[in-house]
Protein backbone atom coordinates (compact mmCIF):
# COMPACT_ATOMS: atom_id res chain seq x y z
CA UNK A 1 0.00 0.00 0.00
CA UNK A 2 1.52 3.35 -1.02
CA UNK A 3 0.54 6.36 1.04
CA UNK A 4 0.10 9.94 -0.29
CA UNK A 5 -0.73 12.76 2.11
CA UNK A 6 -1.32 16.49 1.67
CA UNK A 7 -0.83 18.29 5.01
CA UNK A 8 -1.91 21.86 4.11
CA UNK A 9 -4.83 23.21 2.19
CA UNK A 10 -2.95 25.58 -0.04
CA UNK A 11 0.56 25.24 -1.38
CA UNK A 12 3.02 28.10 -1.40
CA UNK A 13 3.79 29.50 -4.81
CA UNK A 14 7.37 30.09 -3.83
CA UNK A 15 10.24 28.25 -5.43
CA UNK A 16 10.30 24.64 -4.29
CA UNK A 17 13.59 23.97 -5.96
CA UNK A 18 15.37 23.58 -2.58
CA UNK A 19 16.17 20.19 -4.00
CA UNK A 20 17.89 18.58 -1.05
CA UNK A 21 14.95 19.14 1.26
CA UNK A 22 12.42 17.80 -1.20
CA UNK A 23 14.57 15.06 -2.70
CA UNK A 24 13.43 11.49 -2.01
CA UNK A 25 14.83 9.68 1.03
CA UNK A 26 17.02 7.41 -1.09
CA UNK A 27 18.99 10.29 -2.55
CA UNK A 28 19.45 11.96 0.81
CA UNK A 29 20.80 8.68 2.23
CA UNK A 30 23.19 8.35 -0.72
CA UNK A 31 24.45 11.92 -0.41
CA UNK A 32 24.61 11.76 3.39
CA UNK A 33 26.75 8.63 3.36
CA UNK A 34 28.87 10.01 0.52
CA UNK A 35 29.55 13.26 2.35
CA UNK A 36 30.47 11.34 5.50
CA UNK A 37 33.08 9.39 3.52
CA UNK A 38 34.43 12.56 1.92
CA UNK A 39 34.80 14.27 5.30
CA UNK A 40 36.49 11.20 6.78
CA UNK A 41 38.93 10.90 3.87
CA UNK A 42 39.83 14.60 3.92
CA UNK A 43 40.30 14.56 7.70
CA UNK A 44 42.44 11.45 7.55
CA UNK A 45 44.48 13.02 4.78
CA UNK A 46 45.14 16.10 6.89
CA UNK A 47 45.99 13.94 9.90
CA UNK A 48 48.45 11.98 7.81
CA UNK A 49 49.95 15.14 6.31
CA UNK A 50 50.54 16.79 9.67
CA UNK A 51 51.72 13.54 11.22
CA UNK A 52 49.13 13.39 14.04
CA UNK A 53 48.88 9.62 13.89
CA UNK A 54 47.75 7.12 16.56
CA UNK A 55 51.23 5.57 16.45
CA UNK A 56 54.40 5.29 14.34
CA UNK A 57 53.55 3.41 11.14
CA UNK A 58 56.84 1.47 11.05
CA UNK A 59 57.01 0.63 14.79
CA UNK A 60 56.68 -3.18 15.02
CA UNK A 61 54.79 -4.43 18.05
CA UNK A 62 56.18 -7.96 17.76
CA UNK A 63 54.22 -9.06 20.87
CA UNK A 64 50.86 -9.14 19.07
CA UNK A 65 51.37 -9.54 15.34
CA UNK A 66 48.38 -10.29 13.09
CA UNK A 67 46.12 -9.01 15.90
CA UNK A 68 42.46 -8.68 15.06
CA UNK A 69 40.52 -5.42 15.38
CA UNK A 70 39.86 -3.86 18.81
CA UNK A 71 42.95 -5.31 20.51
CA UNK A 72 44.12 -2.82 23.12
CA UNK A 73 46.58 -0.30 21.77
CA UNK A 74 45.59 -1.08 18.17
CA UNK A 75 42.03 -0.06 17.31
CA UNK A 76 42.20 -1.82 13.94
CA UNK A 77 44.68 -4.51 14.99
CA UNK A 78 48.14 -5.08 13.48
CA UNK A 79 49.58 -6.53 10.28
CA UNK A 80 51.96 -9.48 9.81
CA UNK A 81 54.89 -7.38 11.06
CA UNK A 82 52.98 -6.03 14.07
CA UNK A 83 52.62 -2.54 12.56
CA UNK A 84 49.47 -0.64 13.58
CA UNK A 85 46.86 -1.02 10.83
CA UNK A 86 44.90 2.11 11.73
CA UNK A 87 47.94 4.32 11.17
CA UNK A 88 48.90 2.60 7.94
CA UNK A 89 45.31 2.89 6.63
CA UNK A 90 45.31 6.64 7.34
CA UNK A 91 48.69 7.01 5.61
CA UNK A 92 47.39 4.94 2.72
CA UNK A 93 45.22 7.93 1.77
CA UNK A 94 48.34 10.00 1.06
CA UNK A 95 49.03 7.75 -1.88
CA UNK A 96 45.91 8.72 -3.84
CA UNK A 97 44.38 11.90 -2.41
CA UNK A 98 46.47 14.70 -3.91
CA UNK A 99 47.23 12.83 -7.14
CA UNK A 100 43.46 12.11 -7.36
CA UNK A 101 42.67 15.80 -7.04
CA UNK A 102 45.19 16.52 -9.79
CA UNK A 103 43.52 14.02 -12.12
CA UNK A 104 40.10 15.52 -11.34
CA UNK A 105 41.25 19.07 -12.08
CA UNK A 106 42.76 18.00 -15.40
CA UNK A 107 39.68 15.99 -16.37
CA UNK A 108 37.26 18.84 -15.53
CA UNK A 109 39.22 21.72 -17.05
CA UNK A 110 40.23 19.90 -20.23
CA UNK A 111 36.84 18.17 -20.45
CA UNK A 112 34.87 21.41 -20.13
CA UNK A 113 37.08 23.11 -22.73
CA UNK A 114 36.68 20.25 -25.22
CA UNK A 115 32.95 20.04 -24.47
CA UNK A 116 32.43 23.75 -25.17
CA UNK A 117 34.58 23.51 -28.29
CA UNK A 118 32.50 20.60 -29.60
CA UNK A 119 29.09 21.86 -28.44
CA UNK A 120 29.30 25.60 -29.06
CA UNK A 121 31.35 25.70 -32.26
CA UNK A 122 30.21 22.37 -33.61
CA UNK A 123 31.12 21.40 -37.17
CA UNK A 124 34.73 20.33 -37.63
CA UNK A 125 35.69 20.82 -33.99
CA UNK A 126 32.85 18.53 -32.96
CA UNK A 127 34.12 15.76 -35.23
CA UNK A 128 37.65 16.32 -33.90
CA UNK A 129 36.52 16.00 -30.26
CA UNK A 130 34.45 12.93 -31.08
CA UNK A 131 37.51 11.39 -32.76
CA UNK A 132 39.64 12.02 -29.66
CA UNK A 133 36.92 10.57 -27.44
CA UNK A 134 36.70 7.40 -29.49
CA UNK A 135 40.49 7.21 -29.50
CA UNK A 136 40.68 7.37 -25.70
CA UNK A 137 37.77 4.94 -25.30
CA UNK A 138 39.55 2.45 -27.56
CA UNK A 139 42.43 2.11 -25.10
CA UNK A 140 41.57 0.19 -21.90
CA UNK A 141 42.79 2.40 -19.08
CA UNK A 142 44.84 -0.19 -17.20
CA UNK A 143 46.52 -1.45 -20.40
CA UNK A 144 47.47 2.11 -21.31
CA UNK A 145 48.83 2.58 -17.80
CA UNK A 146 51.02 -0.49 -18.18
CA UNK A 147 52.37 0.96 -21.43
CA UNK A 148 53.13 4.28 -19.71
CA UNK A 149 54.73 2.39 -16.82
CA UNK A 150 56.89 0.35 -19.21
CA UNK A 151 57.94 3.53 -21.02
CA UNK A 152 58.53 5.97 -18.16
CA UNK A 153 58.54 4.04 -14.83
CA UNK A 154 56.37 6.98 -13.69
CA UNK A 155 55.52 8.16 -10.18
CA UNK A 156 51.89 8.28 -9.02
CA UNK A 157 51.50 11.90 -10.16
CA UNK A 158 52.35 11.12 -13.78
CA UNK A 159 49.93 8.21 -13.65
CA UNK A 160 47.22 10.53 -12.37
CA UNK A 161 47.95 13.04 -15.13
CA UNK A 162 47.31 10.24 -17.64
CA UNK A 163 44.12 9.32 -15.74
CA UNK A 164 43.01 12.96 -15.93
CA UNK A 165 43.70 13.14 -19.66
CA UNK A 166 41.81 9.92 -20.34
CA UNK A 167 38.80 11.01 -18.22
CA UNK A 168 38.49 14.38 -19.98
CA UNK A 169 36.53 13.05 -23.01
CA UNK A 170 33.76 11.68 -20.74
CA UNK A 171 33.36 15.12 -19.20
CA UNK A 172 33.49 16.70 -22.66
CA UNK A 173 30.64 14.48 -23.87
CA UNK A 174 28.45 15.46 -20.93
CA UNK A 175 29.14 19.19 -21.34
CA UNK A 176 28.43 18.91 -25.06
CA UNK A 177 25.13 17.17 -24.21
CA UNK A 178 24.12 20.10 -22.01
CA UNK A 179 24.94 22.59 -24.76
CA UNK A 180 22.92 20.52 -27.23
CA UNK A 181 19.94 20.58 -24.83
CA UNK A 182 20.20 24.40 -24.55
CA UNK A 183 20.60 24.72 -28.31
CA UNK A 184 17.49 22.60 -28.93
CA UNK A 185 15.37 24.99 -26.88
CA UNK A 186 16.90 27.88 -28.89
CA UNK A 187 18.33 29.31 -25.68
CA UNK A 188 21.73 30.00 -27.20
CA UNK A 189 20.26 31.70 -30.26
CA UNK A 190 18.03 33.89 -28.12
CA UNK A 191 20.99 34.87 -25.91
CA UNK A 192 22.96 35.88 -29.00
CA UNK A 193 19.92 37.78 -30.32
CA UNK A 194 19.61 39.70 -27.04
CA UNK A 195 23.21 40.84 -27.44
CA UNK A 196 24.97 38.72 -24.79
CA UNK A 197 28.63 38.22 -25.72
CA UNK A 198 29.70 34.65 -26.60
CA UNK A 199 32.19 34.61 -23.73
CA UNK A 200 29.46 35.35 -21.19
CA UNK A 201 27.11 32.83 -22.80
CA UNK A 202 29.77 30.11 -22.45
CA UNK A 203 31.18 30.96 -19.05
CA UNK A 204 28.09 32.19 -17.21
CA UNK A 205 25.11 30.55 -18.82
CA UNK A 206 26.52 27.24 -20.04
CA UNK A 207 29.34 26.36 -17.63
CA UNK A 208 28.39 28.13 -14.40
CA UNK A 209 24.62 27.79 -14.34
CA UNK A 210 24.04 24.61 -16.31
CA UNK A 211 27.21 22.53 -15.88
CA UNK A 212 28.38 23.15 -12.29
CA UNK A 213 26.25 20.27 -10.88
CA UNK A 214 27.46 18.01 -13.66
CA UNK A 215 31.13 18.90 -13.04
CA UNK A 216 30.75 18.36 -9.27
CA UNK A 217 29.31 14.90 -9.92
CA UNK A 218 32.13 14.04 -12.32
CA UNK A 219 34.60 15.17 -9.67
CA UNK A 220 33.22 12.70 -7.09
CA UNK A 221 33.17 9.85 -9.65
CA UNK A 222 36.68 10.91 -10.70
CA UNK A 223 37.99 10.48 -7.17
CA UNK A 224 36.47 6.98 -7.00
CA UNK A 225 38.32 6.19 -10.26
CA UNK A 226 41.54 7.52 -8.77
CA UNK A 227 41.19 5.33 -5.66
CA UNK A 228 40.49 2.22 -7.75
CA UNK A 229 43.38 2.93 -10.11
CA UNK A 230 45.96 3.71 -7.41
CA UNK A 231 45.05 0.68 -5.34
CA UNK A 232 45.02 -1.61 -8.40
CA UNK A 233 48.42 -0.37 -9.57
CA UNK A 234 50.01 -0.66 -6.12
CA UNK A 235 48.47 -4.14 -5.86
CA UNK A 236 50.26 -4.98 -9.14
CA UNK A 237 53.43 -3.65 -7.58
CA UNK A 238 53.71 -0.47 -9.68
CA UNK A 239 52.45 2.14 -7.25
CA UNK A 240 53.89 2.97 -3.87
CA UNK A 241 56.46 0.41 -2.75
CA UNK A 242 56.78 -1.23 0.68
CA UNK A 243 57.14 -0.06 3.45
CA UNK A 244 55.19 3.06 2.42
CA UNK A 245 51.57 2.00 2.92
CA UNK A 246 48.96 2.01 0.18
CA UNK A 247 45.65 0.19 0.51
CA UNK A 248 46.53 -1.75 -2.64
CA UNK A 249 49.87 -3.11 -1.49
CA UNK A 250 48.48 -3.79 2.00
CA UNK A 251 45.88 -6.12 0.49
CA UNK A 252 48.61 -7.72 -1.62
CA UNK A 253 50.91 -8.18 1.36
CA UNK A 254 48.11 -9.71 3.42
CA UNK A 255 47.05 -12.07 0.64
CA UNK A 256 49.25 -15.01 1.66
CA UNK A 257 47.95 -14.79 5.21
CA UNK A 258 44.41 -14.62 3.93
CA UNK A 259 44.94 -17.84 2.03
CA UNK A 260 45.94 -19.43 5.32
CA UNK A 261 42.75 -18.26 6.98
CA UNK A 262 43.93 -15.04 8.66
CA UNK A 263 41.54 -12.64 6.96
CA UNK A 264 41.90 -9.35 8.73
CA UNK A 265 45.29 -8.18 7.43
CA UNK A 266 44.03 -8.20 3.83
CA UNK A 267 40.40 -7.44 4.61
CA UNK A 268 40.89 -4.16 6.50
CA UNK A 269 42.42 -2.27 3.53
CA UNK A 270 39.94 -3.97 1.17
CA UNK A 271 37.02 -2.69 3.25
CA UNK A 272 38.64 0.75 3.29
CA UNK A 273 38.70 0.68 -0.52
CA UNK A 274 35.15 -0.66 -0.65
CA UNK A 275 33.56 1.97 1.59
CA UNK A 276 35.53 4.87 0.10
CA UNK A 277 34.71 3.98 -3.52
CA UNK A 278 31.09 3.22 -2.54
CA UNK A 279 30.91 6.61 -0.80
CA UNK A 280 32.07 8.54 -3.84
CA UNK A 281 29.81 6.56 -6.20
CA UNK A 282 26.72 7.07 -4.03
CA UNK A 283 27.52 10.76 -3.58
CA UNK A 284 27.80 11.15 -7.34
CA UNK A 285 24.59 9.23 -8.06
CA UNK A 286 22.64 10.97 -5.29
CA UNK A 287 23.68 14.46 -6.44
CA UNK A 288 22.92 13.43 -10.01
CA UNK A 289 19.37 12.42 -9.13
CA UNK A 290 18.86 15.60 -7.12
CA UNK A 291 20.25 18.17 -9.52
CA UNK A 292 19.93 16.53 -12.87
CA UNK A 293 16.34 15.73 -12.04
CA UNK A 294 16.18 12.05 -12.88
CA UNK A 295 13.63 11.36 -10.14
CA UNK A 296 12.20 14.85 -9.81
CA UNK A 297 8.42 14.25 -10.00
Amino acid at each position, binding site marked *: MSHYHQPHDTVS*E*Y*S*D*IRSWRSAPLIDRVYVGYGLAVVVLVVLSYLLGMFGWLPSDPDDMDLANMLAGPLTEGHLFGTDYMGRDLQTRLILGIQAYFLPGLLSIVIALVLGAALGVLAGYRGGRSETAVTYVTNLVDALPRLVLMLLVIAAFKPGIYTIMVVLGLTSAPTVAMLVQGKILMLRQ*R*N*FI*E*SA*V*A*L*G*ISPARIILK*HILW*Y*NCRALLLIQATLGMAEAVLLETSLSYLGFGVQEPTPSWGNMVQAGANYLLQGNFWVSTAPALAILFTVLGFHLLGDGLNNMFEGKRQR
Partner: protein
Amino acid sequence: MASPILEVKGLSKHFAQRRGLLGLLSGNAGGTIPAVDGVSFALAEHETLGLVGESGCGKTTTGKAILKLMPVTAGEIRYRGQDITSLSPGEFRPLRREIQMIFQDLDAALNPKMRIESILREAIGLCEPELDADGLRRRTYELLELVNLKKNKLANFPSELSGGEKRRIGIARVLAVRPKLIVADEPTSALDVSIQAQVINLLRDLQGQFGLSYLFISHDLPLVELVSHRVAVMYLGQIVELGSAPRIAHAPHHPYTSVLWSSLAEKRSREAFPGAAPAWGVFDFERPSGGCRFAPRCPVYAARGKPAECTDPHNTPRLREIEPGHAVACHFPL
Protein backbone atom coordinates in the same frame (compact mmCIF):
# COMPACT_ATOMS: atom_id res chain seq x y z
CA MET B 1 3.93 55.25 -46.35
CA ALA B 2 5.96 56.18 -43.27
CA SER B 3 9.75 55.82 -43.80
CA PRO B 4 10.53 52.07 -43.77
CA ILE B 5 12.35 50.89 -40.64
CA LEU B 6 13.29 47.66 -42.41
CA GLU B 7 13.82 46.89 -46.10
CA VAL B 8 14.62 43.41 -47.37
CA LYS B 9 15.65 42.99 -51.01
CA GLY B 10 16.12 39.61 -52.76
CA LEU B 11 16.91 37.81 -49.49
CA SER B 12 18.00 34.18 -50.10
CA LYS B 13 19.20 31.47 -47.75
CA HIS B 14 20.21 28.09 -49.17
CA PHE B 15 21.02 25.20 -46.82
CA ALA B 16 23.59 22.68 -48.10
CA GLN B 17 22.02 19.20 -48.14
CA ARG B 18 24.30 17.14 -45.87
CA ARG B 19 25.73 14.27 -47.91
CA GLY B 20 27.05 11.24 -46.00
CA LEU B 21 30.70 10.23 -46.24
CA LEU B 22 29.95 8.08 -49.30
CA GLY B 23 28.26 11.03 -50.97
CA LEU B 24 31.39 13.09 -50.54
CA LEU B 25 33.55 10.26 -51.87
CA SER B 26 31.30 9.80 -54.87
CA GLY B 27 31.93 13.39 -55.96
CA ASN B 28 28.55 15.06 -55.85
CA ALA B 29 28.75 17.37 -52.86
CA GLY B 30 24.96 17.33 -52.71
CA GLY B 31 22.38 19.87 -53.81
CA THR B 32 21.20 22.85 -51.76
CA ILE B 33 17.73 23.45 -50.37
CA PRO B 34 16.69 27.07 -51.14
CA ALA B 35 14.73 27.55 -47.88
CA VAL B 36 14.39 31.29 -48.65
CA ASP B 37 14.59 32.30 -52.32
CA GLY B 38 14.54 36.00 -53.28
CA VAL B 39 12.24 37.44 -50.60
CA SER B 40 11.64 41.22 -50.71
CA PHE B 41 9.43 43.39 -48.52
CA ALA B 42 9.50 46.58 -46.49
CA LEU B 43 8.27 47.26 -42.92
CA ALA B 44 7.27 50.78 -41.87
CA GLU B 45 7.64 52.39 -38.42
CA HIS B 46 4.87 51.34 -35.96
CA GLU B 47 3.58 48.81 -38.51
CA THR B 48 2.85 45.09 -38.02
CA LEU B 49 3.63 43.00 -41.10
CA GLY B 50 2.24 39.45 -40.92
CA LEU B 51 4.37 36.70 -42.48
CA VAL B 52 2.17 33.63 -42.94
CA GLY B 53 2.63 30.21 -44.52
CA GLU B 54 2.72 26.50 -43.81
CA SER B 55 5.61 24.96 -41.87
CA GLY B 56 8.72 24.66 -44.01
CA CYS B 57 7.90 27.72 -46.18
CA GLY B 58 10.94 29.65 -44.82
CA LYS B 59 9.17 32.25 -42.68
CA THR B 60 11.23 31.52 -39.53
CA THR B 61 14.45 31.38 -41.55
CA THR B 62 13.61 34.80 -42.99
CA GLY B 63 13.11 36.17 -39.47
CA LYS B 64 16.39 34.74 -38.17
CA ALA B 65 18.28 35.97 -41.24
CA ILE B 66 17.12 39.53 -40.53
CA LEU B 67 18.57 39.27 -37.02
CA LYS B 68 21.80 37.97 -38.53
CA LEU B 69 21.49 34.77 -36.47
CA MET B 70 22.61 32.92 -39.59
CA PRO B 71 24.73 33.93 -42.64
CA VAL B 72 22.72 35.06 -45.68
CA THR B 73 23.31 33.41 -49.10
CA ALA B 74 22.25 36.50 -51.07
CA GLY B 75 20.22 39.68 -50.77
CA GLU B 76 20.33 42.88 -48.74
CA ILE B 77 18.84 43.90 -45.40
CA ARG B 78 18.61 47.61 -44.61
CA TYR B 79 17.66 48.77 -41.10
CA ARG B 80 16.67 52.49 -41.04
CA GLY B 81 18.40 52.94 -44.36
CA GLN B 82 21.69 51.38 -43.19
CA ASP B 83 22.82 48.17 -44.93
CA ILE B 84 23.43 45.70 -42.10
CA THR B 85 23.91 42.58 -44.25
CA SER B 86 27.69 42.76 -44.33
CA LEU B 87 28.34 44.17 -40.84
CA SER B 88 30.70 42.16 -38.61
CA PRO B 89 29.23 40.90 -35.30
CA GLY B 90 31.14 43.62 -33.46
CA GLU B 91 29.83 46.42 -35.67
CA PHE B 92 26.32 45.01 -35.51
CA ARG B 93 26.21 44.64 -31.69
CA PRO B 94 25.00 48.22 -30.87
CA LEU B 95 22.28 47.83 -33.49
CA ARG B 96 21.42 44.33 -32.25
CA ARG B 97 19.70 45.83 -29.20
CA GLU B 98 17.23 47.69 -31.40
CA ILE B 99 16.24 44.60 -33.39
CA GLN B 100 14.98 41.85 -31.07
CA MET B 101 13.26 38.50 -31.50
CA ILE B 102 10.59 36.60 -29.56
CA PHE B 103 11.15 32.88 -30.13
CA GLN B 104 8.40 30.30 -30.62
CA ASP B 105 9.79 28.06 -27.86
CA LEU B 106 8.53 29.44 -24.52
CA ASP B 107 11.73 28.30 -22.80
CA ALA B 108 14.09 29.88 -25.38
CA ALA B 109 14.63 33.12 -23.50
CA LEU B 110 14.93 31.53 -20.05
CA ASN B 111 18.03 29.85 -18.64
CA PRO B 112 16.47 26.87 -16.80
CA LYS B 113 18.82 27.21 -13.80
CA MET B 114 18.46 31.00 -13.35
CA ARG B 115 15.78 32.74 -11.31
CA ILE B 116 13.55 35.23 -13.10
CA GLU B 117 15.09 38.16 -11.26
CA SER B 118 18.62 37.47 -12.50
CA ILE B 119 17.32 36.84 -16.04
CA LEU B 120 15.75 40.30 -16.16
CA ARG B 121 18.68 42.01 -14.43
CA GLU B 122 21.11 40.60 -16.99
CA ALA B 123 18.99 41.95 -19.85
CA ILE B 124 18.68 45.38 -18.18
CA GLY B 125 22.43 45.43 -17.56
CA LEU B 126 23.08 45.03 -21.29
CA CYS B 127 21.35 48.29 -22.08
CA GLU B 128 21.97 50.31 -18.90
CA PRO B 129 25.15 49.00 -17.30
CA GLU B 130 25.45 52.11 -15.13
CA LEU B 131 22.34 51.37 -13.05
CA ASP B 132 23.01 50.74 -9.35
CA ALA B 133 21.21 48.14 -7.20
CA ASP B 134 17.94 49.96 -6.59
CA GLY B 135 17.99 51.45 -10.08
CA LEU B 136 18.01 47.85 -11.35
CA ARG B 137 15.25 46.88 -8.93
CA ARG B 138 13.05 49.78 -10.02
CA ARG B 139 13.59 48.96 -13.71
CA THR B 140 12.78 45.27 -12.97
CA TYR B 141 9.47 46.19 -11.27
CA GLU B 142 8.72 48.58 -14.15
CA LEU B 143 9.17 45.75 -16.66
CA LEU B 144 7.00 43.38 -14.61
CA GLU B 145 4.24 45.99 -14.56
CA LEU B 146 4.56 46.44 -18.32
CA VAL B 147 3.81 42.75 -18.82
CA ASN B 148 1.39 42.67 -15.79
CA LEU B 149 3.15 40.06 -13.70
CA LYS B 150 3.24 40.00 -9.90
CA LYS B 151 6.53 40.74 -8.07
CA ASN B 152 6.56 37.38 -6.27
CA LYS B 153 7.37 35.73 -9.60
CA LEU B 154 10.92 37.12 -9.41
CA ALA B 155 12.06 34.38 -7.02
CA ASN B 156 10.74 31.53 -9.18
CA PHE B 157 12.61 29.37 -11.65
CA PRO B 158 11.34 29.15 -15.27
CA SER B 159 10.15 25.57 -14.68
CA GLU B 160 7.68 26.87 -12.07
CA LEU B 161 5.94 29.29 -14.42
CA SER B 162 2.88 28.67 -16.57
CA GLY B 163 3.07 29.07 -20.36
CA GLY B 164 1.61 32.57 -20.27
CA GLU B 165 4.01 33.71 -17.56
CA LYS B 166 7.02 32.35 -19.46
CA ARG B 167 5.99 34.26 -22.58
CA ARG B 168 5.49 37.49 -20.60
CA ILE B 169 8.92 37.17 -18.95
CA GLY B 170 10.36 36.60 -22.46
CA ILE B 171 8.70 39.83 -23.64
CA ALA B 172 9.87 41.73 -20.54
CA ARG B 173 13.42 40.52 -21.20
CA VAL B 174 13.23 41.86 -24.76
CA LEU B 175 11.75 45.19 -23.63
CA ALA B 176 14.63 45.61 -21.18
CA VAL B 177 16.97 46.56 -24.05
CA ARG B 178 14.45 49.10 -25.44
CA PRO B 179 14.08 47.63 -28.97
CA LYS B 180 12.53 49.40 -31.97
CA LEU B 181 11.75 46.37 -34.16
CA ILE B 182 10.62 42.96 -32.88
CA VAL B 183 10.50 39.79 -34.99
CA ALA B 184 7.84 37.66 -33.25
CA ASP B 185 8.08 34.02 -34.37
CA GLU B 186 4.76 32.26 -33.54
CA PRO B 187 4.58 34.08 -30.17
CA THR B 188 1.24 32.54 -29.19
CA SER B 189 1.19 29.14 -30.91
CA ALA B 190 2.28 27.29 -27.73
CA LEU B 191 -0.33 29.04 -25.53
CA ASP B 192 -3.94 28.36 -24.55
CA VAL B 193 -6.70 30.38 -26.23
CA SER B 194 -7.45 32.61 -23.22
CA ILE B 195 -3.74 33.32 -22.69
CA GLN B 196 -3.23 33.97 -26.42
CA ALA B 197 -5.73 36.82 -26.25
CA GLN B 198 -3.88 38.36 -23.28
CA VAL B 199 -0.50 38.21 -25.06
CA ILE B 200 -1.94 39.69 -28.27
CA ASN B 201 -3.47 42.57 -26.33
CA LEU B 202 -0.12 43.03 -24.56
CA LEU B 203 1.81 43.16 -27.85
CA ARG B 204 -0.72 45.66 -29.22
CA ASP B 205 -0.45 47.89 -26.13
CA LEU B 206 3.36 47.82 -26.27
CA GLN B 207 3.24 48.83 -29.94
CA GLY B 208 1.11 51.82 -28.99
CA GLN B 209 3.25 52.74 -25.98
CA PHE B 210 6.74 52.35 -27.51
CA GLY B 211 5.96 52.74 -31.24
CA LEU B 212 7.35 49.25 -31.96
CA SER B 213 7.29 47.65 -35.41
CA TYR B 214 6.50 43.93 -35.56
CA LEU B 215 7.32 41.26 -38.10
CA PHE B 216 4.63 38.78 -36.94
CA ILE B 217 5.39 35.23 -38.14
CA SER B 218 2.63 32.61 -37.80
CA HIS B 219 0.78 29.76 -39.46
CA ASP B 220 -2.48 30.78 -37.65
CA LEU B 221 -4.30 32.68 -40.42
CA PRO B 222 -7.15 34.34 -38.47
CA LEU B 223 -4.61 35.49 -35.85
CA VAL B 224 -2.37 37.07 -38.51
CA GLU B 225 -5.40 38.76 -40.07
CA LEU B 226 -6.29 40.18 -36.63
CA VAL B 227 -2.92 41.56 -35.59
CA SER B 228 -1.37 42.68 -38.91
CA HIS B 229 -1.76 45.86 -40.92
CA ARG B 230 -0.30 44.14 -43.98
CA VAL B 231 0.24 40.41 -44.67
CA ALA B 232 2.80 38.57 -46.83
CA VAL B 233 1.93 34.98 -47.78
CA MET B 234 4.94 32.67 -48.28
CA TYR B 235 5.08 29.35 -50.14
CA LEU B 236 8.25 27.20 -50.46
CA GLY B 237 10.65 30.09 -49.79
CA GLN B 238 8.94 32.80 -51.88
CA ILE B 239 6.40 35.54 -51.20
CA VAL B 240 3.42 34.76 -53.43
CA GLU B 241 1.14 37.61 -52.28
CA LEU B 242 1.52 40.82 -50.25
CA GLY B 243 -1.24 43.24 -49.32
CA SER B 244 -3.48 44.74 -46.62
CA ALA B 245 -4.75 42.19 -44.06
CA PRO B 246 -8.51 42.39 -44.80
CA ARG B 247 -7.97 42.10 -48.54
CA ILE B 248 -5.59 39.10 -48.18
CA ALA B 249 -8.14 37.36 -45.89
CA HIS B 250 -11.34 38.07 -47.79
CA ALA B 251 -10.39 38.97 -51.38
CA PRO B 252 -7.14 37.17 -52.17
CA HIS B 253 -5.77 37.13 -55.71
CA HIS B 254 -3.33 34.23 -55.44
CA PRO B 255 -4.88 30.71 -55.58
CA TYR B 256 -2.66 29.48 -52.69
CA THR B 257 -3.82 32.29 -50.37
CA SER B 258 -7.43 31.49 -51.16
CA VAL B 259 -6.93 27.75 -50.56
CA LEU B 260 -5.00 28.47 -47.36
CA TRP B 261 -7.78 30.68 -45.93
CA SER B 262 -10.55 28.36 -47.09
CA SER B 263 -8.99 25.37 -45.36
CA LEU B 264 -9.85 26.81 -41.96
CA ALA B 265 -11.44 24.11 -39.88
CA GLU B 266 -14.54 26.15 -39.09
CA LYS B 267 -15.42 26.74 -42.74
CA ARG B 268 -16.66 23.88 -44.93
CA SER B 269 -13.71 23.70 -47.34
CA ARG B 270 -15.76 22.30 -50.20
CA GLU B 271 -18.25 25.10 -50.63
CA ALA B 272 -15.63 27.80 -50.11
CA PHE B 273 -13.67 26.51 -53.08
CA PRO B 274 -15.53 23.99 -55.20
CA GLY B 275 -12.52 23.17 -57.34
CA ALA B 276 -10.32 22.40 -54.35
CA ALA B 277 -7.70 19.88 -55.37
CA PRO B 278 -8.27 16.32 -54.16
CA ALA B 279 -6.57 15.02 -51.06
CA TRP B 280 -3.00 16.20 -51.67
CA GLY B 281 -1.97 15.81 -48.10
CA VAL B 282 1.58 15.05 -49.10
CA PHE B 283 3.54 18.30 -48.84
CA ASP B 284 6.37 17.77 -51.26
CA PHE B 285 9.55 19.71 -50.52
CA GLU B 286 11.28 18.84 -53.76
CA ARG B 287 11.05 21.83 -56.10
CA PRO B 288 9.23 21.43 -59.42
CA SER B 289 11.73 22.03 -62.23
CA GLY B 290 10.81 25.67 -62.88
CA GLY B 291 8.11 28.28 -63.11
CA CYS B 292 5.45 28.64 -60.43
CA ARG B 293 6.17 26.39 -57.45
CA PHE B 294 2.54 26.07 -56.50
CA ALA B 295 1.54 24.70 -59.93
CA PRO B 296 1.45 21.01 -58.93
CA ARG B 297 -1.07 21.80 -56.15
CA CYS B 298 -2.81 24.78 -57.79
CA PRO B 299 -6.54 24.32 -58.51
CA VAL B 300 -6.52 27.21 -61.05
CA TYR B 301 -3.65 25.56 -62.94
CA ALA B 302 -5.71 22.33 -62.99
CA ALA B 303 -8.95 24.12 -63.84
CA ARG B 304 -7.30 25.94 -66.77
CA GLY B 305 -5.97 22.67 -68.21
CA LYS B 306 -2.36 23.03 -66.99
CA PRO B 307 -1.38 26.15 -69.04
CA ALA B 308 2.31 26.12 -70.14
CA GLU B 309 3.16 29.58 -68.76
CA CYS B 310 2.82 28.33 -65.21
CA THR B 311 5.59 25.76 -65.48
CA ASP B 312 7.78 27.66 -67.97
CA PRO B 313 11.14 28.09 -66.16
CA HIS B 314 11.92 31.32 -68.04
CA ASN B 315 8.61 32.90 -67.08
CA THR B 316 8.59 32.40 -63.29
CA PRO B 317 5.79 34.59 -61.94
CA ARG B 318 7.28 37.75 -60.30
CA LEU B 319 5.68 39.65 -57.42
CA ARG B 320 3.99 42.53 -59.25
CA GLU B 321 1.56 45.15 -58.03
CA ILE B 322 -1.89 44.54 -59.57
CA GLU B 323 -3.64 47.10 -57.30
CA PRO B 324 -2.21 49.97 -55.20
CA GLY B 325 -0.63 48.34 -52.18
CA HIS B 326 -1.40 44.76 -53.31
CA ALA B 327 1.09 42.56 -55.16
CA VAL B 328 0.78 38.94 -56.34
CA ALA B 329 3.10 36.45 -58.07
CA CYS B 330 0.77 34.59 -60.40
CA HIS B 331 0.04 34.53 -64.16
CA PHE B 332 -3.68 34.03 -63.62
CA PRO B 333 -4.59 35.98 -60.43
CA LEU B 334 -8.17 35.44 -59.19
